[in-house]
């Protein structure tokens, strides 16, 4: 099952985390208390130029030392601290959540990497694959993921989520069915400014995983959803596709639909299917992706998971259930179910 929420204020007015916590908790039934998480964009304006690296450490010994070393190889840490947290009776603190504000230095990356983003991606893959006891679970700018194993309220209270104010929020309550429960397996999954919450399964995971590995991504989260963040990074950042085109590649029209299209449109869609065949996602899913400039929302092509959209002025809400949207905004105006496979995109205005 799983319960998901996405929110964007297209006018960039920021909302604190209390509403999203209440809305996610309303869908407690959709999860099993084995993973919950939140992503918020616009929360670190004082460090907006720095990558906010959120890390789970098993302890502050060897693993921490190794992460510090890697970061110093590539740039400068301007600030670091434990992510503020409050113990919760219903949540076992398995890891120490830590955050670094980090900037790659031009004189360290010159000739070694093409861009700051490439450096950060490299660091995330290195740490998550090679350093025992450390997992970087959030690596964007002016945004952050907060997640753990537990119920939505406990995870929100643990991270004091109402203290953060964001213009994009994602939230997820997990019901793990075919992969292990651990803090890094909770959603959202993130790389750079891409964050993903997902209800369902990616049955094409094996094919998609081999595809992203060909581009140097390492799948280390022990569950399928992380591959979506990497697919968006390849198609969006590396190949420069628009959000609409990324969704078209990941959940393309059926061949029958293409046969009914006008010739030019059919050619484009055939080309996308042939080029991005290994990126095509199969299985039941509804997904919200947070990005630099908005949110991207879509379901599988035959709509095997629920998704409701609501709007109120500059605010766009999506969730597994309408009641969750009404919890955040009792005044929400239009409520509708999007068509299978068709993207709903909320961009800043």
């Amino acid at each position, binding site marked *: 099952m799983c319960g998901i929420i996405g929110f964007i204020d297209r006018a960039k007015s920021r909302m604190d985390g209390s509403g999203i916590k209440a809305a996610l908790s309303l869908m407690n039934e959709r999860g099993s208390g084995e993973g919950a998480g939140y992503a918020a964009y616009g929360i670190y304006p004082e460090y907006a130029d720095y990558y906010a690296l959120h890390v789970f450490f098993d302890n502050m010994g060897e693993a921490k030392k190794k992460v510090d070393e890697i970061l110093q190889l590539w740039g400068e840490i301007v600030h670091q601290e434990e992510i503020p947290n409050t113990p919760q009776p219903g949540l076992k603190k398995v890891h120490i959540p830590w955050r670094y504000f980090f900037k790659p230095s031009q004189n360290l990356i010159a000739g070694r990497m093409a861009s700051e983003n490439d450096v950060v991606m490299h660091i995330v893959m290195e740490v998550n694959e090679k350093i025992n006891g450390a997992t970087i679970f959030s690596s964007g700018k002016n945004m952050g993921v907060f997640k753990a194993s537990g119920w939505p309220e406990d995870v929100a209270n643990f991270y004091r989520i109402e203290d953060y104010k964001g213009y994009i929020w994602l939230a997820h309550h997990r019901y793990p069915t075919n992969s292990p429960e651990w803090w890094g397996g909770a959603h959202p999954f993130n790389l750079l400014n891409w964050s993903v919450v997902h209800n369902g399964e990616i049955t094409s995971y094996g094919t998609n995983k081999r595809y992203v590995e060909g581009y140097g991504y390492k799948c280390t989260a022990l569950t399928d959803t992380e591959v979506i963040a990497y697919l968006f990074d390849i198609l969006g950042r590396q190949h420069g596709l628009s959000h609409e085109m990324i969704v078209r590649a990941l959940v393309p029209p059926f061949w029958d639909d293409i046969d009914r299209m006008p010739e030019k449109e059919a050619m484009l869609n055939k080309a996308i299917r042939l080029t991005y065949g290994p990126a095509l996602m199969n299985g039941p899913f509804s997904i919200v992706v947070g990005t630099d400039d908005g949110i991207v929302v879509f379901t599988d092509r035959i*709509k095997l998971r629920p998704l409701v959209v609501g709007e109120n002025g500059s605010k766009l809400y999506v969730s597994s259930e*309408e009641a969750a949207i009404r919890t955040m905004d009792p005044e929400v105006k239009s409520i509708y179910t999007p068509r299978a496979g068709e993207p709903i995109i909320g961009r800043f205005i």
Partner: protein
Amino acid sequence: MKTVRIDAKGMHYTPLNQKIRAAVADGAEEIILDNVLGQRFIGDGLRGNVRIIINGVPGGDLGMFMSGPTCIVNGNAEHAPGNTMDSGMLIIHGSAGDAVAHSMRGGKVFVKNNIGYRGGIHMKQYEEEVRPVLVVGGTAHSFLGEYMAGGIVLVLGIGKEKAMTDIGIGSGIHGGEIIIRGEVDDYLLGLGARKFKFTESDLERIAPIIKTFCEQFGYDPTEFLDTNYTRIGPASSRPFASKYVWE
């Protein structure tokens, strides 16, 4: 008439359903639920002739296994209202989510506006006399009447140019019928479904259903009794026989 009013604000569905059952046991004929928001399983397995008025948006599986009561929703409903319902009526003054009337066995589900995907999935019926009915005022998304084994699904397409524009109608249907106002493009039909001629006797048969639907929402039934419909049913009683056996 004995009426009981319950404020459901912030209440979990377990105590809410306990209160509803206690009221019914106490002889209530009408129960009004205010501030409903996302509470699942309202009226599940409930028996009797009680009328439940739901002000707000009830959660999934409204009226599941229900036998007798009438639920009137002043708002939208979420997934699977009428799931495996036996008898009684759900009247939804709004839209509903996916899998409306899922596996429904009897009674009526009336939705004023639209429904999501897989409405009427696996509806069934017992002989001719116990036929569940789902009527949708607006339109339905894909896979309407998927794996349907019995009963009637009727889509009126009120305010729509075409009542149905989504694919997979009657995919895997092996019993029952789907009746859609106006023409339906052939490519919208699912595997195992085919069109049948809609006759005068079919219209006579569905006229009482149309009238009851219109009574609930204050529509004049005349325009729905003087119009064309498309009738869709099973091409065979075992549409997927060749998928499972090699003979």
